[in-house]
């Protein structure tokens, strides 16, 4: 008997249960990674700078994220008198939500098969497979700007405003570069759906059958330039350290989150790490074959995500912050022309190849 894909039409109750389980698991794993990424970051950067990092709370400081959470939760929540109240309260939520929503379209494993009531069902390990998956992710990345811009604007403080202005200019420029750099992926895979892109990467490398069959057609091999551009542009878009001008401590106190305290401040931090996880997951799906690899489905995927997270932390410990004009020059004069050139070259290559 051929298995059917579990959907709302053939088994509504089962579909709803599977959906709920997928959402809860994806959300709690994401939150767990977010909490412990802070610990890993402090440990790794500590080691790289010949320090220990957190050691006091629990075994090797493992309880540190929980202690931080409790501390921030019990701090006084201050809303400045001069702030625009509604926007001030909404801003931290608007920065966290898009990062979490974007995870909904990422496939984290192969199809899972199970039998119920004599019928074999196939459950895709993905919360929803949108036909426009990648566009959805780009749209959510576009909405991520609002949180930072509003935080800067609503706080009614000079440092916050400067941080917000920097953030909006920087994120618009690098969003463009990130979007242009992944256009080549659609050219090669001929689909926008993320599960389709993962499926397209499981064929033999470059269609050459003489190569050993365990090397799969991951797009990092055909598009190394696009991969580099995407990773750099995404790091700039989520304001990770070489590009963290919106919250440059040495110039702007703390940038757009200067006026925030308590859980609202914690939300900004959670959003930063959630964005890191999302970007890692997107990069792994688009360029490294998603859940494809030597181990069982989601284990491969988690390994790739952790690899990217480590890379981001490593970069933070290594590079100094860019100057603002250098940042803009790199965005508009280097990354965007390179991405456009890459599109032209790939288009010609695809035309000749077919």
């Amino acid at each position, binding site marked *: 008997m051929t298995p059917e894909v579990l959907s709302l039409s053939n088994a509504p109750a089962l579909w709803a249960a599977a959906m709920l389980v997928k959402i809860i698991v994806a959300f709690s794993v994401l939150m767990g990674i977010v909490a412990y990424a802070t610990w890993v970051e402090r440990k790794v950067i500590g080691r790289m700078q010949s320090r220990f990092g957190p050691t006091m709370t629990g075994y090797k400081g493992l309880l540190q994220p929980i202690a931080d959470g409790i501390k921030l939760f019990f701090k006084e929540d201050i809303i400045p008198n*001069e702030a*625009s109240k*509604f*926007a001030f309260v*909404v801003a931290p939520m608007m920065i966290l939500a898009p990062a979490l929503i974007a995870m909904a379209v990422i496939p984290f494993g192969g199809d899972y098969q199970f039998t119920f009531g004599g019928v074999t069902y196939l459950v895709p390990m993905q919360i929803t497979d*949108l*036909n*426009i998956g990648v*566009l*959805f992710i*780009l*749209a959510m*990345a*576009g*909405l991520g*700007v*609002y949180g930072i*811009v*509003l935080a*800067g*604007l*609503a706080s*009614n403080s000079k440092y916050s*405003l400067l941080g*917000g*202005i920097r953030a*909006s*200019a920087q*994120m*618009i420029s690098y*969003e463009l570069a990130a979007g242009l750099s992944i256009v080549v992926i659609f050219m090669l895979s001929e689909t*926008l759906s993320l599960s389709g892109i993962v499926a397209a990467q499981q064929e033999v490398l470059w269609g050459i059958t003489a190569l050993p069959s365990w090397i799969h057609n991951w797009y990092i091999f055909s598009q190394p330039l696009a991969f580099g551009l995407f990773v750099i542009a995404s790091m700039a878009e989520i304001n990770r350290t070489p590009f963290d001008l919106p919250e440059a401590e040495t110039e702007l106190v703390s940038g757009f989150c200067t006026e925030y305290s308590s859980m609202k401040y914690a939300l900004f931090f959670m959003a930063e790490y959630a964005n890191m996880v999302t970007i890692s997951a997107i990069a792994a799906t688009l360029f490294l074959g998603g859940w494809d690899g030597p181990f069982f489905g989601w284990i491969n995927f988690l390994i790739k995500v952790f690899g990217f997270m480590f890379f981001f932390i490593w970069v933070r410990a290594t590079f100094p912050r860019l100057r603002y004009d250098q940042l803009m020059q790199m965005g508009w004069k280097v990354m965007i022309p390179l991405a456009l050139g890459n599109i032209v070259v790939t288009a010609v290559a695809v035309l000749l190849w077919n």
Partner: protein
Amino acid sequence: MLSILFYLFATVAIFSAFYVTKARSPVNSALCLVTTFICFAVLYIMLDAPFMAAIQIMVYAGAIMVLIIFVIMLLNLGTAIKKRYTHALVWGGGVSVLMLFITNVFIRRGEMSGKVGDVTTQTIHNYGHTELIGKAMFTEFLLPFEIASILLLVAIVGAVILSKREV
């Protein structure tokens, strides 16, 4: 189910559009406009046009509104507050009621013929909305597409010339 969702999002869209004009600080107006755009995107999805929905969020909510907020920030209008009542509100209200009336008259003028075009819900499900739009844009409507891109290019060159300083 679908119609409940439609009424929910239509109501939110209308109320947030109303608050765009009513909100007293420009930041809140901009936020309400973003809400309206997102509701429109949801309505596009209900009309089987997911590509339009994604583009609506990317272009209108993600780019154009961010630029508007950027201008609000640069002009430092963040704390400016409008006067509570103005006559403009009354005129605006009158015009929108009139528009509603005219639209209603035009919509109810004829009978439905029941004719179906080439693109139906079934074709969209078979081929995908993005593919259909791409095909139409690069074959049938290629000339208007190219004209639009030249128009945009002219606008970009114009903006660069206007803002360029003498070197």
